[in-house]
């Protein structure tokens, strides 16, 4: 393998993608069924919906906590690309990460039953990847140990997880009282592919030893690292039919739930919260685990010359060295192992205030009045291998016309301090078309953008009251 390409690929990865299942603009957008996937307890006004297969929800998001494509590939004669790579490696920290999230709704439908509860079900596919910048291994690979004598490299900086899952789900949304909606959703996960290397430990150092046998002591201490994967043993033999069959019958299954509520404080104030993807996947089919653990110290090969009185056979020094290493550092490459992974659980919560002229005046029940404008704050957090990622979004949602909703958001997140997003949803009779995007300022030049998210879809939404 070309190591440079591998290294640059890793760096490219750092250019970073980050995201989660749906655009944050869709949270609390209760006029769209996709908001049920972010909070099953959202206040649902419509009576039926069904998505156009494969087109009802297409979501992709990328972002970067530090680096952009422009930082590496800008057309700038005053510096070389190698200077920029070096600068990037040293400006990034182990806290910087890359994630990518893609979600595709395959089937989506919902209906209100006789009891007035709104039921929804569907099938979607999701890709979720997170790779933390392996700071110390990257410095070691880029510079070598020669300029870093005495430095203890933390091999635990290697942390990554990626998965492709297919999800069948069924949810129920219940209006408990005039003010409170609750909801839950059960999910059956079928993992198509999983690769996990988290919780690694170990340190490597090269230290001078003035009183030692040789110049240095190379130490590998506390190594405990593993890489687990399931679903696909060899990508080279992967065929389209395998991908389709593994989406439902891959053999690596899991379960999860979503729960949430929406509470009307009064006519204008609302509070909501939800937990999404509280679940796990158990992997036992087409699995492999590569692991290494142990301690080792090396200071060279000690030659033992025969004395005049005791001639001895020349030992197989190199073989002894290799055997000694193997005896101290256990290496495993096993198939058929079993392991479980937790889904990246998301938490959403919002506080919303509605204002402006009432669009629908319900004289019998003023609590049902709807206002043209909504504003509020949405808190989001997702559980990640090292620490949760969080964001805070302020938004303003307006129903511009009877068929047109628009929402603008301003998000504070780890990527940028000026993340402005929007959502436009048009309801033409029963047909709904929506598009939302994050960090719209970054679209002027995507290479300079730290984050970008796009979601669009089309579906039918039926409201018998209208």
């Amino acid at each position: 393998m070309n190591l440079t390409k591998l290294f640059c690929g890793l760096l490219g990865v750092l250019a970073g993608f980050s995201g989660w299942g749906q655009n944050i603009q869709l949270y609390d957008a209760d006029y769209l069924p996709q908001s049920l996937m972010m909070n099953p307890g959202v206040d649902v006004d419509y009576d039926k919906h069904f998505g156009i297969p494969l087109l009802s929800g297409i979501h992709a998001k990328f972002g970067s906590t530090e680096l952009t494509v422009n930082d590496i590939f800008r057309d700038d004669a005053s510096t070389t690309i190698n200077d920029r790579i070096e600068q990037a490696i040293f400006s990034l920290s182990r806290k910087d990460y890359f994630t990518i999230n893609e979600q595709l709704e395959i089937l989506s439908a919902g209906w209100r039953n006789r009891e007035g509860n709104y039921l929804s079900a569907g099938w979607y596919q999701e890709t979720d990847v997170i790779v933390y910048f392996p700071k110390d291994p990257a410095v070691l690979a880029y510079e070598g140990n020669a300029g870093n004598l005495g430095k203890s490299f933390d091999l635990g900086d290697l942390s990554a997880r990626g998965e492709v899952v297919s999800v069948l789900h069924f949810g129920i949304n219940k209006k408990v009282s005039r003010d409170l909606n609750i909801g839950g959703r059960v999910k059956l996960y079928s993992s198509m592919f999983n690769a996990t290397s988290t919780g690694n430990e170990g340190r490597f150092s090269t230290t001078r030893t003035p009183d030692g046998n040789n110049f240095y002591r190379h130490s590998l201490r506390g190594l405990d690292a593993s890489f687990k994967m399931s679903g696909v043993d060899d990508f080279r033999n992967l065929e389209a039919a395998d991908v389709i069959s593994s989406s439902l019958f891959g053999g690596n299954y899991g379960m999860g739930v979503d729960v949430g509520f929406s509470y009307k404080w009064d006519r204008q104030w609302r509070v909501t919260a939800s937990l999404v993807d509280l679940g796990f996947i158990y992997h036992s089919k087409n699995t492999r685990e590569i692991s290494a653990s142990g301690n080792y110290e090396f200071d060279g090969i000690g030659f033992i010359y025969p004395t005049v009185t005791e001639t001895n056979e020349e030992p197989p020094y190199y073989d002894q060295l290799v055997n000694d290493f193997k005896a101290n550092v256990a290496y495993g490459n096993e198939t058929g192992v079993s392991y479980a992974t937790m889904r990246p659980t998301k938490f959403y919560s919002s506080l919303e205030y509605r204002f402006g002229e009432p669009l629908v005046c319900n004289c019998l029940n003023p609590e049902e009045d709807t206002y043209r404008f909504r504003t509020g704050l949405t808190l989001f957090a997702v559980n990640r291998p090292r620490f949760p990622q969080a964001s805070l979004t302020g938004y303003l949602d307006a129903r511009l016309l009877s068929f047109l909703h628009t929402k603008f958001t301003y998000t504070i997140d780890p990527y940028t301090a000026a993340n402005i997003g929007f959502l436009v949803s048009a309801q033409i009779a029963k047909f709904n078309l929506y598009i939302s995007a994050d960090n719209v300022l970054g679209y002027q030049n995507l290479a300079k953008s730290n984050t970008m998210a796009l979601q669009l879809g089309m579906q039918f939404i039926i409201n018998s009251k209208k």
Partner: protein
Amino acid sequence: MPIMDFYIIFRTLSICSLMLLATSCVKDQDFDQADEIVLTPEIETDLVYLQLTQDNFVNSSGEAEVSFVSQTTNLNFIKDGFVQNDLSRIDFTFDTANSFRQPFNTIVTFLNETGQVTYEFSFFVPASETGEPVSNTYVESIMGDDLQRFKNAVSLQVSSSIILSEFPIMGTLDFQSKARLYFEFN
């Protein structure tokens, strides 16, 4: 702010946002620069170490019986792909501390699989005049055509010859070695 103003602002922003989305692009980037990427890590590693005493040269009567000693080890990592393809230079450093009152001639030989010499060099280890250890450092840099010959090796032999003098053979020779490997990955 009047509600109508909100309405106008929203409509304008919505249209602008959609236009921005439609005209998004990647500008002022030169992806051909990827061909110029070179990574140049330098790896410092210990090599072999040894200690010679008079027991390696004289018998129980103190008479010199052996004047040349040698040991060999495989260095199979030289055949690894990244060494063969991406090693651009290697510097060997040898430190000696000699308390013998005799100097040594040390020969470092790299051998291929059939035992033929692919690269060889030697250096002189000065004698101690007082019996106190005398330190000496020798550096051998291998690059260019020499490096190609070196890459054909699979084993390393270190031989030392004691150069006899009128003084009794007594003392120690401590020998340390390391290598700095310069890589160019592109």
